[in-house]
């Protein structure tokens, strides 16, 4: 079958539309995929975990975040809007005074920062904070 110019155009635009539709959810679920790799799809609770991050970050290059989840064995941080969502994983040893960790992270744009804590009993906690990033801005 010979492709006419008109058919090619229709085909081209249709495949472009599907690619755009398929592309969006795939991009948004990078973080979900990473979280799924930790939890294996188990339910997450949001009680008992505290994630502290500024509401507005003027400089996306250093955003201070602090996460605390008493009784956790490890806490993973994710930035949902970054090219690679993984940020850092804290693994607490026997001499950890508390299951708390603070660090500074990079955020590419306004997005949700997600923390997933793995508890000693095998359950999972999840906390999420939206951070507005105004790179190069002067606040507000």
């Amino acid at each position, binding site marked *: 079958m010979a492709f006419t110019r008109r058919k090619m155009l229709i085909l081209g635009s249709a495949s472009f539309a599907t690619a755009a539709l398929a592309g969006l959810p795939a991009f948004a679920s990078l973080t979900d995929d990473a979280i799924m790799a930790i939890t294996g799809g188990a339910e997450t609770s949001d009680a008992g975990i505290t994630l502290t991050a500024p509401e507005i970050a003027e400089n996306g*290059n*250093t*955003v201070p975040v*602090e996460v605390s989840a008493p009784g956790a064995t490890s806490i993973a941080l994710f*930035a949902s809007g*970054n*090219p*690679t969502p*993984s*940020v*850092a*994983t*804290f*693994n*607490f*040893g*026997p*001499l*950890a*005074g*508390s299951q*708390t*960790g*603070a*660090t*500074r*992270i*990079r*955020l590419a744009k306004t997005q949700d920062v997600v923390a997933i804590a793995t508890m000693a009993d095998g359950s999972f906690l999840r906390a999420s904070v939206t951070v507005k990033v105004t790179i190069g801005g002067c606040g507000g």
Partner: protein
Amino acid sequence: MAENVRPRVRVPKTAAAGEVITIKSLISHKMESGQRKDGDGNVIPRSIINRFVCAFNGVVVIDVTLEAAVSTNPFFEFEAVVPEAGDFTFTWYDDDGSVYEETKSVAIA
């Protein structure tokens, strides 16, 4: 070996036995993310510290896995129990295989 890498750690000099102390650590490192491009449009290769471990007399306090999203000059603040007098060792592992170490002694007051 990345140039000008200097670890800095703040640990109290003395503590009561069993006390929980706060430790702050910072190491100067450019943490090149592998996302940036130079003036000619070539991607600058990733060069970060990928792991940080703090241990007291050989027992792990915290073991952190770092990704490219951790800021330049990676900073960590956390808490540790001091059961007896001894040494905190801090170890940073670089992508290029370098290992940076720092030791701080704590006495029991």
